[in-house]
């Protein structure tokens, strides 16, 4: 084994171990949060970052050939597919949960949300101006 092969081995192992650590974080998050819409945030991380760092490690191992190209194709496909499936899952949750307002605030109209946000912002600036510092 020459130096190039050692470098390949070490770089690939580092990427693979990063990927495994991200998968572990994903699992921890899924068990730590209490509600689906929070869990989805943790679960979407492994779909993009976890699998892409694992496959980058495997690409470094396999070198330049068609297998590398196919792995890159998988990563690109998941970058597009993962946000779409998260969106569809959250729509499922919002459509079927009757007690959604227990878990998060719901605004029926976007104008109401903007009104409240601007009111909050005005309060913050008032506090800052009133603060003699």
């Amino acid at each position, binding site marked *: *084994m020459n130096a190039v*092969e050692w470098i390949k*081995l070490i770089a690939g*192992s580092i990427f*693979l171990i990063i*990927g*495994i650590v991200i*998968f*572990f974080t*994903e*699992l921890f998050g*899924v*068990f730590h949060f209490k509600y*689906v819409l929070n*869990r*989805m945030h943790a*679960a979407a991380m*492994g*779909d993009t970052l*976890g*699998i892409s760092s*694992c*496959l980058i490690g*495997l690409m470094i*191992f*396999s070198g330049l*050939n*068609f*297998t590398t190209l*196919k*792995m890159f*194709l*998988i990563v690109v*496909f*998941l970058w597009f*597919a993962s946000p*779409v*499936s998260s969106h*569809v*899952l*959250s*729509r*499922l*949750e919002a*459509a*079927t*949960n009757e007690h959604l307002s227990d878990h998060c605030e719901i605004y029926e109209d976007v104008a109401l949300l903007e009104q409240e946000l601007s009111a909050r912002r005005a309060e913050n600036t008032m506090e800052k101006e009133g603060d003699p510092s």
Partner: protein
Amino acid sequence: MEKEMLYHPLFIALLILLSIMLLVCLIRAVKGPRVADRLVAVNMMGTMVMVMISILALLLKEGYLVDICLIYAMISFLAVVVISKVYIGIYEERHHNLENGEGGDTDERS
């Protein structure tokens, strides 16, 4: 020959770690109180299985296993989208029946 000795244990260790994580994911899929919980867990399992198939492709030196991995990604994406749409449809139909007083099953399995 020396190269094999280094790659082989690494791949085996990663496969074992991923299978343990897969079992923990399965616990989440069984426990999940709502349908969306189960679907999120199944999606995670699909991602982990994709990594396992790619590792096996390099371990067994069979390049075509990566093709199977690509098809697996597409089918798992399709499954999540289709099951979500079907479940939304079933839920709305059941709700409609309850509102009209036509009966139907009253237990709300969620």
